[in-house]
């Protein structure tokens, strides 16, 4: 296998795509948002339980490729217990890693376990797969066009 393919499909990515964490409907979510990539049909429903600016719980459901599923799964693991602004800051760092790669100023260690997605930037056609969950997150947190549940 070529080394860039190995970078893309790291063990962590395969693991999270096969056994996505927090893959469920979240009862009592205060924010939900739907993400859709019309190009490939990837679909994602994100549930966030937000209390006093802190992400108490986060989960997702949907269908998509290994990259989009792993990205969503890793994201939920990374964000549980994080403050809203911390989550958005991480979004910025992950986005930079995915779009600028090693040419950017981002170091993989700045994103913790999400560094497993660092190989994506070498596959420009697949960047959207990895960012889908994150754009959906921002939509949920900013409640822009998101369906907000008041429960």
């Amino acid at each position: 296998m070529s080394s860039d393919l190995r970078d893309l499909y790291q063990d962590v990515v395969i693991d999270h795509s096969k056994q996505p964490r927090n893959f469920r409907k979240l009862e009592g979510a205060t924010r939900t948002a739907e993400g859709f990539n019309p190009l490939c049909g990837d679909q994602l429903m994100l549930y966030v339980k937000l209390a006093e600016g802190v992400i108490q719980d986060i989960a997702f459901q949907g269908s998509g490729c290994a990259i989009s599923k792993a990205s969503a799964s890793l994201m939920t693991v990374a964000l549980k217990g994080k403050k809203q602004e911390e989550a958005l800051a991480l979004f910025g760092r992950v986005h930079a890693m995915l779009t600028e790669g090693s040419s950017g100023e981002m170091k993989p260690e700045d994103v913790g376990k999400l560094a497993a997605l660092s190989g994506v930037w070498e596959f420009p056609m697949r960047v959207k797969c990895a960012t889908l969950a994150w754009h959906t997150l921002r939509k949920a947190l900013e409640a822009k066009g998101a369906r907000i549940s008041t429960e």
Partner: protein
Amino acid sequence: MTPVQANSATTSRLVHGQAGRRRVDFDVARVRQDFPILREKVYGKPLIYLDSAATSQKPRAVIDAMSRFFLKENANVNRGVHYLSERATEAYEGARAKVQRFLNAEHAHEIIFVRGTTEAINLVAQTYGKKHVGEEDEVLITAMEHHSNIVPWQMLCEETGGRLRVAPINDVGELLLDEFEKLVGPKTKLVAVTHVSNVLGTINPIRRIVEMAHARGAHVLIDGAQAAPHLKVDVQALGCDFYALSGHKMYGPTGIGVLYGRSELLEEMPPYQGGGDMILSVSFEKTVYNKPPQKFEAGTPNMAGAVGLAAAIDFLSGLGQETLSDHEEEVLAYGIHALSQVPDLRLIGTARAKASVISFLLADVHPHDIGTILDREGIAIRTGHHCAQPLMNRLGVAATARASLGCYSTHTDIDALVAGLGKVREVFR
């Protein structure tokens, strides 16, 4: 896995035809030499091009014909009286005559040049459709249509209050003819059906469809984008009223396509776009429209595209449509057999009459991941919903991986695909 038969550059086998058994010799190695792009390397590996249903590669003859047009003949058609304009007009109208013979249309003026199949269908929707599909009238399509044979009719129906009806298919991807027939009623003004499905490869029984529709007074449009490169198309034998095709899927350039329409229908249809060429006289009080085909070709046409399409038709004629179909059928059968030996692989679309397309799923690996891994092996396939989301829903899948064949496809391509799928399994083991 073991290949069904040894890799061979030449298809040589016995075919049972109506004329009895005949030997088919198709020198695919020589055909491949006509396609410069097939010598390209992808990530240092030989290009394995299995995406001809998206767009075919172009033979040298097409590339040369277009550059010759620009180098020696370029001028605007139907306008100047000068030498070059005459040459360009001859080339452009010569291309029209060539398409007429290719489709066996009765008249050259039944051939309208458009950008592609999509524009051809939109043209019919916006002209014939607006005139004939009124409130409560129906347009009948099938569950296996490409978005380009769905959306123009939806737009039309939204505008006129017409109704879009959809004939169902079975699980292997064949049109249910009985159900189809029941749906053709007195309100059906137009039936729009694909000749060959871009996702499943299903070849629809066009003659039967036309008979059923005509028996109830409905006209028939055939989306021939996927059929023209693979099957002999005879619009008079099919009996259809409109036939649409795209140049780029049949070894010609992008941006040129054809709408065939029966003369009587074209005569009474309102024009499509307004502009130059489509008029006889213009005053601010009244404009008199030109006759078909000019009535439907406003503005300076894609002259080089038409010349390229004519060269592509010459190329196809040179291969021999029957010999080509036999070659592709043989590689298709080899491919279906080879892929069905791959563990956990599920073929999508197994119609009895099938051409040049193999859609599949591999275990629970998403088609996009399959596509990316194959790409790094130099293998180009299509993945996704193939612009046929309603069909994907009917089949209960979000996407498929699709390998599609052309005149240059070989057993080697199929073997590379099978080996590539082995790599996919390795990554996702």
